[in-house]
């Protein structure tokens, strides 16, 4: 690849891993290219703030909004259509008709659940029924990974995770229910439950990863740091050590963004969504999931968005 092709791909975050390695090698061996990269990055940083500051004419916006509302009402009257001007029943109907055929069904359901307490929505049985999907299973498709991952809601009375899963006991008791990955769901038994209250033992593989992370950071190898940080964060998440998971995933996200490996960025955001979901922070989970999707879409990566569905009790 030419310098321009590499540079353009780097700036667009469209280089694959091999190309990124080629890019890094060339940057290290060619000072002129390194300078070019530096200058382009400075330009990129400055461009968003170079946008002209144009004050928003609030009065104009309000006036146009009112004009359009009037226009819609007139057209609706002319055509004999019931426009949904203040007609929230129609809004609900139309919203439901759309979400019923959209993946946003799941996002909407999760969003409603997240704000449920705040707006006391579910205190109204009739409206709650309108939006209920009748299911409490969360299905998550995690596109960056080879296998789709499915989240399942596990009731505490139903099953208890095994030690093999290294699920901590606090994870089991949180909110009386627990989210875990179906791909990881072990064969549960009450006997193993007793073992789960013990602290997880040291893991040579994990310790090795932590050592690798230190070395890659010392070598300023951001790509490798992002990759290892992701692996560590995922391991902690799968063990139910969510605070540690979030810490390593957060660092990995920074590394992924700085190294511009968008695949890692998407994957880390997906992991953060799963981690937030596992700790009951549904709004955060939604935010991470949406960010992952938007980053993937922007980079032209095929991405199966996270899907949330309520499961039956």
């Amino acid at each position, binding site marked *: 690849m030419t310098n*321009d092709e590499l*540079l353009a791909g780097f*700036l*667009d975050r469209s280089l694959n891993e091999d190309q990124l390695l080629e890019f890094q090698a060339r940057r290290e061996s060619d000072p002129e290219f390194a300078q070019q990269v530096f*200058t*382009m990055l400075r*330009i*990129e940083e*400055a*461009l*968003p*703030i*170079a*946008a*002209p*500051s*144009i*004050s*928003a*004419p609030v009065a*104009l*916006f309000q006036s*146009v*909004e009112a*004009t*359009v*509302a009037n*226009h*819609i*009402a007139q*057209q*609706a009257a002319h055509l004999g259509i*019931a*426009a*949904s*001007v203040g007609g*929230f*029943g*129609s*809004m*609900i109907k*139309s*919203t439901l*008709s*759309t*979400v019923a055929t*959209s993946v*946003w069904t799941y*996002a*909407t359901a999760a*969003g*409603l659940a997240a*704000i449920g307490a705040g*707006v*006391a*929505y579910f205190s*109204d049985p009739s*409206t709650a029924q309108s*939006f209920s999907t009748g299911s409490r299973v969360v299905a998550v498709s995690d596109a960056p990974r080879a296998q789709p991952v499915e989240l399942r809601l596990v009731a505490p009375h139903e099953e208890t995770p095994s030690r093999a899963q290294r699920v901590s006991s606090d994870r089991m008791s949180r909110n009386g229910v627990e989210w875990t990955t179906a791909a990881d769901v072990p064969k549960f038994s009450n006997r193993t439950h007793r073992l789960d209250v013990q602290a997880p033992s040291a893991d040579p593989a994990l310790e090795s990863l932590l050592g690798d992370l230190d070395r890659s950071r010392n070598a300023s190898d951001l790509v490798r740091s992002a990759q290892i940080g992701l692996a560590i964060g995922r391991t902690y998440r799968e063990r139910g050590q969510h605070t540690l998971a979030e810490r390593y995933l957060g660092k990995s996200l920074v590394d992924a963004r700085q190294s511009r490996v968008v695949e890692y960025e998407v994957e880390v955001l997906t992991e953060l969504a799963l981690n937030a979901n596992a700790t009951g922070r549904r709004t955060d989970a939604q935010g991470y999931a949406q960010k992952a999707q938007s980053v993937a879409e922007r980079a*032209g990566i095929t991405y199966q968005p996270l899907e949330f569905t309520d499961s039956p009790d």
Partner: protein
Amino acid sequence: MPTYAIIVVRMTYELLSDEAVFALVRDENDQEAFAVLYRRYNKRVYAYCVRALGNPEDARDVFQSVVLTIYDKRRSFSDGSFAAWLFTITRNMCLKTLRNRKQTSEFVEELHDTEESGSNSPDFLLRAELRKAINDLPAEFREALELRYFDDLTYEDIAEALGVSVSLAKVRVFRAKKILAKTLSPILDEL
């Protein structure tokens, strides 16, 4: 309808994509859905009009026309990106206005220079030089660059709005940045 239910329904709109919300406008004549999209894009469309036309008066007229046109032409939107379709219409209406004026547009520097006058920070110097350099770019490069960095469009949406291929949109943005880098490298070295 209880107030809390209304709040929830409004929040569900916020969770929908532009295309899903506009489908409600097109198929259900849903005014609330249109208002949601309007609030998502009004500032960006207006800013685009000001940049393209060079003065707020023309921008106001075109902005209002764009909003009404979007609603009137709602049935012509079938699939693809709503943002690309919106900016295509906005761009065409700005070009039409410019043709009628029979003059090319220039940025109105007063619009954005007043707040920063007197500043001597490195950021300010770079920003000022950058704006100058952007204004000196060839029109097709400048337009692609602004759609990317000022209007936050994807390359796919830029391509659709400009009626060019995605690869050409990428090339234009990259070349614009290369020109800027060349023009500004002496300044960057000093800062």
